[in-house]
């Protein structure tokens, strides 16, 4: 279809197509389509020559063409006043189309049409769908009525018809043109109001003079100055000029371009002389059109440079710049092309050379226009035409009408764009594109004119007050400008123009809101959608992280919001509620952060009122909620009951894992994930549970959540108990947590747009109290804050429950799904935007769909709340206990019996029960042990003690274990169980617990069985009773008896018993030195007298029964048989009861370690055999004595254990008869010979060698009480008192003494000085290792 602003529009004949004979709409459009597709131009060659015609005989110029444009709109009455000035505006031909019918009188219709459209000069009709056989015969009947069979197979049929129509047209045009011959042509003046017409251009003129920015305001006084010509001849010239110009226009229409060019040039000559600028400009324009068309049809023509150059103000220098090949590279390219396209460019030059040869001479003053390239020439012509139009505004009478001026500019721009987009080759295809208004695909920059030149032309339009033009014209101009910008690839300019168009439409839309058709609304929406894309409103920050970061960083919210507001106005004017709702949604979703509070509130109110109205109008409009990130957190609230549940598997594992905590860390051990269920994610079917959810409200208004439902995934369903939903009192910190809120689009920090978070005083008393106290389902989130709610729900099935979000309806919005938002995603964004628009998506529908689907996966991560629903579990509760109030007082070591009774209160049978205990001493001990392991502060023996207290000591014991096992296989619903306990008091115990683990164990489904426990607390206070204060071990000799008598006379204790025991030993000829004396001090810390019983059960049992008065310490002696070295293995390491990792302590020397081991095992030995108990005076209380505090020293151990090597002495007289001891000593005669026999027994495991040293010392010295008064004699050396036969120091033997062997050494001696002596012997062992051994019992000698 041809374009109103095509450059060759002045050469296009307008044809109005009207339906006749009850033509249906479908048929009419079909016929119109046929016309459009087949006919756009008619060559004069094809038209029957008609020599009768004075002007328009087609035969005279067979190359010419008549361009036809079909319109269906009625004739524009507004522009009628222009028809005489620009006849191409006139609709000359009316063609009536209709379906053929036999009885149709076509002529009658034609007459009616002629009266209907009086301004047209001819009316013809085409009857379609005529039977093919009749076409030819019918066509001959009436020259004004044509018949066509309506098929497309005879392509030429329509063209033939149009040739005839054009023949008719030329006939009529001839007479029409002739009618102008004697008329004085006047400049067009609006019939209605001449003032209106000129106003716009006046303003424009004013602006131009003010701004002075237009390029064409060149003064040409020399030309425009009034000449001395006579006024009459001037009038004549004007008349002639105008006539020629008008004829030129008619020639253009009739396709006779040579004649047109000639007429225009003649007109120009005349008009220039009389300064008739308006007609001059029009003639120039017509000339330009003629040139283009002549070039297009390849006809030769010559421009009279001498006439034109002054008019065009082309000087020689300017000419040079236009035609110089070096200055104008495009020209050179044309020249190089000219050889190829000889028909296009060369004719002008050659022709002018022939006719106007002398003008080619460079000396002549007038340059040759024919050498100028076509685009440059046209540019010069058109710019002159426009400047003449501009000049005409000085003359009120002959002022250019706005519409003429504007359209002229637009046509010129169109031409320039055509050249700009052409390949620069000036090929006929380029011209055809210009003429047919087609676009070339390859928009290279090879073409003529810079874009800036074209834009400068477009600027001229903006210097006019387009607002004053009729709205239709405005729309046309804006849309053609938009299409021009789009041709130039200037999308933003295009957007701007379209926006201006929308603004321009706004007032009229309001006026015509009732009459707007859906089609119009649709087109407006399309424009709006297109602009959304251009202004970046289509980015989707609510669903795409990239878009969000993009929007936060690179956006023009001010622009976007303004545009959206404009759209809203449009929506209001066309009363499109749906459109408005979508706009509100878009604004609230994407631009909340940039909207002031009152705007947000207004938008919300708008939405509410629209929804309300739509329900009245039954339009059933709905909007989604604007913030898809409403649910920020959802947390399952644990109830106490659930803490007790342990999965059965885990429970079984626990027993093992507890042990292994102490074992050393094994990095290669695979940790098996046994815990299938997280304990805090368990809930019981049919129980009411709670979710704590955090909802955000980024808006400045408060949101009301009318309905909230938990949305799940999978088989397990939940029932949301709406009546129990309530708000959690917001703490101040939560109020300010808005910073964490994910906005649909992040904050933009463009100056002036940053919205300061206003202090939220949402806790206004009314609102607050209502939301917290209310248990109804209305939940309110205050503005700009988050609020927490407790949502009660009940799981309806057993299994895994996946909560994926919530379904909520908020305010006026439809119920909608909200996922649980976890984390916001960020995306690195691209730096450069791409303005290429691949497709124009429906932005508004998209935002609605995004919100409805809550498809925010790429914007934020969502989470699922996975909970495990289990079937109902048994409940065991304590119903009775024999301990009053759960409090008992015990003495240390006291044993106490009690019983508890438990009842199963659930409908589920308990088939698993296990017992454990806990008391308050465990933890400190554990801590001590653990810290000791780390800091190495305790030695192995001490650790063993702690471990013993933890492991071996049992404070509780079930007395009726067998009975329980027999009686209670299961505890049915409502059944009781009674358990008897014995508790033992221990120091430090103040709180203890009996822990019962029970379960309904389903053997088929162990992973889904859960163990619950019940804790029965027992408060115990333990008072001290009998305590071990100290202990010691003394050696026991036969001689010790007297000493003991003396020392312990004042303290009876059990001394007599011990003496009895020893004398018993002596009597039974046992060696007293095989025993030692164990001394233990016991203290009674209790307030009553306590009886004690100590028992040492060895080969011979020794028992002590005594009583201790309060606060007194008693010492008890227990004879203990000494331990032979091989009786106990002292080299065994100290064991660990908890399988602790052995850590070697390098701080201890080997000897110290050995000693420690030895002491440990000795103590162990004693504790094994020694036991003690106590009882109160009235037998009400009884208990054990804790003997663990016993500690042994190294000295104790050497007393308790025999040495490895024994040294014994015996003394014989000369005759080798052994002497008897008298009591504890030998009585020897002085100056007598005796033999001392020393027996060495090697009990060790290796042979020994060594040196024996005899150390006889006078006893008087050692036992002397007053050493100062010792006589001189006493101080004599031992050599002077005893004479030895041999040496006192000697190697024991040459061969090593084998293990178990016995060696007897002899030494004879004579005592020469009377007195008492003590004979000690030291064996110095040299091998295998150096050691000293001393005879266990010194030999005492009395010499008389």
């Amino acid at each position, binding site marked *: 279809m041809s374009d109103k602003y095509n450059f060759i529009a002045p050469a296009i004949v307008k044809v109005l197509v009207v339906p006749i004979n009850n033509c249906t709409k479908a048929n009419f459009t079909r016929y119109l389509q046929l016309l459009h597709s087949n006919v756009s131009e008619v060559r004069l060659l094809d038209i029957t020559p008609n020599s009768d015609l004075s002007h328009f005989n087609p035969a005279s110029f067979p190359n010419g063409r008549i361009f036809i444009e079909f319109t269906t709109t009625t004739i524009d009455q507004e522009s009628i006043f222009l028809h005489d000035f620009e006849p191409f505006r006139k609709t000359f031909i009316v063609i009536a189309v209709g379906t053929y019918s036999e009885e149709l009188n076509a002529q009658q219709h034609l007459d009616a049409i002629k009266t209907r459209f009086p301004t047209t000069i001819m009316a013809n009709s085409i009857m379609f769908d005529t039977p093919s056989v009749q076409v030819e015969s019918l066509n001959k009947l009436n020259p004004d009525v044509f018949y066509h069979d309506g098929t497309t197979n005879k392509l030429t049929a329509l063209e033939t018809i149009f040739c005839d129509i054009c023949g008719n047209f030329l006939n009529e045009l001839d007479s029409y043109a002739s009618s102008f011959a004697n008329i004085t042509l006047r400049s067009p003046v609006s019939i209605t109001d001449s003032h209106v017409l000129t106003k716009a251009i006046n303003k424009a003129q004013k602006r131009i003079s003010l701004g002075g920015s237009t390029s064409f305001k060149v003064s040409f006084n020399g030309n425009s100055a009034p000449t001395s010509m006579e006024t009459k001849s001037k009038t004549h010239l004007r008349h002639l000029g105008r006539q020629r110009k008008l004829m030129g226009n008619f020639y253009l229409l009739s396709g006779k371009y040579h004649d047109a060019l000639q007429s225009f040039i003649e007109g120009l000559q005349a008009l220039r002389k009389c300064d008739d600028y308006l007609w001059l400009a029009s003639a120039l324009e017509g000339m330009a059109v003629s040139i283009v068309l002549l070039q297009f049809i390849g006809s030769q023509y010559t421009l009279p440079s001498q006439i034109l150059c002054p008019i065009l103000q082309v000087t020689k220098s300017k000419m040079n710049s236009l035609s110089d090949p070096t200055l104008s590279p495009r020209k050179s390219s044309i020249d190089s092309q000219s050889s190829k396209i000889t028909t296009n460019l060369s004719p002008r030059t050659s022709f002018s050379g022939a006719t106007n040869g002398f003008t080619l001479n460079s000396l002549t003053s007038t340059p040759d226009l024919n050498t100028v390239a076509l685009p440059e020439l046209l540019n010069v012509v058109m710019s002159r035409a426009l400047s003449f139009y501009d000049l005409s505004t000085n003359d009120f009478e002959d002022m250019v009408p706005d519409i003429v001026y504007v359209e002229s500019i637009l046509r010129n721009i169109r031409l320039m764009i055509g050249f700009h987009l052409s390949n620069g080759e000036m090929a006929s295809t380029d011209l055809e594109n210009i003429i047919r208004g087609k676009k070339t695909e390859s928009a290279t920059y090879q073409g003529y004119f810079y874009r800036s030149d074209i834009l400068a032309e477009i600027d001229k339009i903006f210097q006019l007050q387009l607002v004053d033009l009729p709205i239709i014209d405005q729309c046309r101009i804006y849309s053609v400008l938009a299409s021009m910008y789009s041709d130039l690839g200037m999308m933003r300019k295009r957007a*701007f123009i379209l926006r201006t168009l929308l603004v321009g439409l706004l007032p009229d839309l309001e006026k015509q809101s009732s009459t707007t058709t859906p089609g119009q609304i649709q087109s407006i929406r399309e424009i709006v959608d297109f602009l959304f894309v251009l202004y970046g409103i289509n980015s989707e920050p609510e669903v795409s992280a990239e878009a969000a970061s993009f929007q936060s960083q*690179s956006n023009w919210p001010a622009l976007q919001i303004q545009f959206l507001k404009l759209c809203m106005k449009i929506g209001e004017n066309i009363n499109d509620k749906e459109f408005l709702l979508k706009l509100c949604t878009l604004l609230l979703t994407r631009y909340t952060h940039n909207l002031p509070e009152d705007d947000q509130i207004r938008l919300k109110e708008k939405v509410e009122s629209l929804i309300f109205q739509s329900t009245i109008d039954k339009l059933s409009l709905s909007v989604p909620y604007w913030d898809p990130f409403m649910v920020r957190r959802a947390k399952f609230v644990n109830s106490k009951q659930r803490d007790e549940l342990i999965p059965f598997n885990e429970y079984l594992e626990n027993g093992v894992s507890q042990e292994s905590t102490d074992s050393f860390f094994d990095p290669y051990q695979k940790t098996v994930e046994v815990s299938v269920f997280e304990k805090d994610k368990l809930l019981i079917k049919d129980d009411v549970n709670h979710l704590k959810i955090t909802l955000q409200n980024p808006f400045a208004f408060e949101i009301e959540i009318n309905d909230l439902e938990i949305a799940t995934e999978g088989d397990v369903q939940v029932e949301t108990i709406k009546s129990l939903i309530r708000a959690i009192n917001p703490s101040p910190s939560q109020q300010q947590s808005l910073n964490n809120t994910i906005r649909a689009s992040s904050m933009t920090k463009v100056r002036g747009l940053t919205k300061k978070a206003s202090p939220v005083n949402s806790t206004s008393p009314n609102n607050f109290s209502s939301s917290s106290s209310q248990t109804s389902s209305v939940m309110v989130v205050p503005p700009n804050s988050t609020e927490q709610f407790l949502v009660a729900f009940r799981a309806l099935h057993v299994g895994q429950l996946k909560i994926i979000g919530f379904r909520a309806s908020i305010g006026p919005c439809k119920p909608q799904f909200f996922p649980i938002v976890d984390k916001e995603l960020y995306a690195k964004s691209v730096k450069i935007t791409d303005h290429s628009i691949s497709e124009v998506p429906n932005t508004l529908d998209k935002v609605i769909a995004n919100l409805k689907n809550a498809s925010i996966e790429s914007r934020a991560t969502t989470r699922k709340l996975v909970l495990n629903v289990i079937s109902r579990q048994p409940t065991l509760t304590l119903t009775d206990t024999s301990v009053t109030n759960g409090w008992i007082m015990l003495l240390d070591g006291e044993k106490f019996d009690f019983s508890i009774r438990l009842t199963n209160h659930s409908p589920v049978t308990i088939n698993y029960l296990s017992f454990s205990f806990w008391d308050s001493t465990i933890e400190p001990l554990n801590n001590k042990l653990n810290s000791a392991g780390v800091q190495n502060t305790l030695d192995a023996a001490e650790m063993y003690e702690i471990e013993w207290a933890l492991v071996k000591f049992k404070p509780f014991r079930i007395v009726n274990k067998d009975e329980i096992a027999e009686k209670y296989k299961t505890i049915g619903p409502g059944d009781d169980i009674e358990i008897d306990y014995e508790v033992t008091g221990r120091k430090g115990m103040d709180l203890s617990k009996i822990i019962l683990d029970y379960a309904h164990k389903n053997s088929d489904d162990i992973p889904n069985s859960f163990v619950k426990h019940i804790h029965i607390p027992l408060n115990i206070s333990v008072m001290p009773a009998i305590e071990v204060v100290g202990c010691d071990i003394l050696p026991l000799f036969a001689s010790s008896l007297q000493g003991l008598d003396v020392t312990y006379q004042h303290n009876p204790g059990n001394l007599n018993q011990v003496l009895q025991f020893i004398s018993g030993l002596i009597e039974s000829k046992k060696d007293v030195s095989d025993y030692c004396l164990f001394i233990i001090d016991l203290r009674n810390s209790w307030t009553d007298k306590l009886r004690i019983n100590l028992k040492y059960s060895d080969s011979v049992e020794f028992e002590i029964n005594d009583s201790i008065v309060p606060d007194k310490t008693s010492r008890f002696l227990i004879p203990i048989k000494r331990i032979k070295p091989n009786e106990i293995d002292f080299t065994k390491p100290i064991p660990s009861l908890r399988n602790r990792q052995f850590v070697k302590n390098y701080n201890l020397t080997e000897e110290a370690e050995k000693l420690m081991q030895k002491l440990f095992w000795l103590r162990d030995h004693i504790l094994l055999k020694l036991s003690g108990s106590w009882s109160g005076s009235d037998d009400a209380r009884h208990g054990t004595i804790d003997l663990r505090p016993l500690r042994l020293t190294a000295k104790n151990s050497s007393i308790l254990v025999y040495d490895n090597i024994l040294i014994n002495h015996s003394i014989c007289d000369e005759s080798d008869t052994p002497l008897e001891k008298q009591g504890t000593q030998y009585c020897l005669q002085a100056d007598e010979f005796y033999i001392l026999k020393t027996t060495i027994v090697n009990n060790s495991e290796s042979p020994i060698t060594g040196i024996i040293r005899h150390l006889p010392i006078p006893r008087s010295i050692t036992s002397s009480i007053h050493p100062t008064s010792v006589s001189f004699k006493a101080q004599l050396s031992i050599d002077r008192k005893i004479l030895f036969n041999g040496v006192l120091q000697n190697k024991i033997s040459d061969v090593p003494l084998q293990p178990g062997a016995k060696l007897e050494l002899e030494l004879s001696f004579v005592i020469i000085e009377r007195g008492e002596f003590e004979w000690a012997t030291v064996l110095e062992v040299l091998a295998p290792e150096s050691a000293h051994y001393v005879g266990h019992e010194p030999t005492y000698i009395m010499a008389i």
Partner: protein
Amino acid sequence: MSSYYLAIIGTRDNPIYELEFASFKNTTILSSPSTPNTPPPIPGKARFAPNVKELLPFIANSSLDLIEDAQFTSNQLNLGKIDTFYGISINAFITPGNIKFVLCYDGNVKEENSIRSFFNEINELYVKTLLNPFYAVNDAIISPEFDLKVKQLARKYL
């Protein structure tokens, strides 16, 4: 006294700084012919008509097309006057980093030189901003210092 609208536009058509202001010069000359009804103009305060003020971002946005066109035809950073719209002229400057300075002004300012100097100084300010390690390209410039200095430059040159 003419009014100005300065926008610094980032690489993604995003404004990183916007300012409306008016010339401080010639206040006395122009205030005298003003009718007694209109309040005397405040120096430095832009006096765009409300409908024009609304249009300014759109004008600046649409001029980007021309800037992008002009940057390949000129080797100067200062692109000079590139567009007009209903009496509002638009001057532009493009930094080597493809940041555009757009200055829209009404009426009759012909001092291309002062606008060029103004742009050059703004460019220096912008480069200084860019040197800030905490500033990323295309971020909005919110520094009050920058704002103040731009206003001082406006007072100096325009």
